[in-house]
């Protein structure tokens, strides 16, 4: 079962993907690493930052790895490169 999620790109990831946001159809249950791999399939240039990003899923940080995500239609998934506020 798949659903549509909103993927948001920031900072270097927006430059590499060439866009700031899009809707993607992804499996409802997926590990965070598998989700990253789906996104890289769509935007191969993102592969270079794999070691440096985390996700924010429904505005909670998620590391790339085995964590199982249960996604709902319309969920926000953001690519979060290393932050530099302040």
């Amino acid at each position, binding site marked *: 079962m798949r659903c549509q999620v909103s993927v*948001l790109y920031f900072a270097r990831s927006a430059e590499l993907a060439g866009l700031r946001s899009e809707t993607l159809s992804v499996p409802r249950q997926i590990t965070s690493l598998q989700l990253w791999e789906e996104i890289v399939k769509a935007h191969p240039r993102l592969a270079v930052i794999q070691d440096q990003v985390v996700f924010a899923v429904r505005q909670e940080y998620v590391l790339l790895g085995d964590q199982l995500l249960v996604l709902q239609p319309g969920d926000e998934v*953001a690519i979060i490169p290393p*932050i530099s*506020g*302040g």
Partner: protein
Amino acid sequence: MDETEDVPKDFIKLKSAKLSVDEVSELVVSPYCGAVSLFIGTTRNNFEGKKVIHLEYEAYTSMAETEIKKICRDVRQKWPSVKHIAVHHRLGVVPITEASVIIAVSSPHRAESLEAVMYCINTLKASVPIWKKEIYEDEYSWKENKECFWANSEK
């Protein structure tokens, strides 16, 4: 005494207009507080020998505001006497010497507001989804806070 008893408030703003130290300090002033402590983060003109022309900030705005609210909640747990907290962060272009962030905290006595301000800026740098781009003469660089646990700095 004032009827409203000055309910503790958090003032959080992300904006592209120039930040004002007067405005931020006035937000936290309270007749119950003898101390207002401030941190101002300003733009430096150099990094590792390169001339910085200006900084540019972007944010995941809705999540940044939520994360700053969490920081305020943590501050009130650690320093219960803290009265008001204001965090203003600038987005977009920030010229040299102008402020990118101003944090103000009021408390009855000075120790709590001084400690709370330091906690706010340190935690902001570790957890709030805001990004800074340093623009040099010939290139630019996305900065990475050393506080950010997923940055690659040691690899």
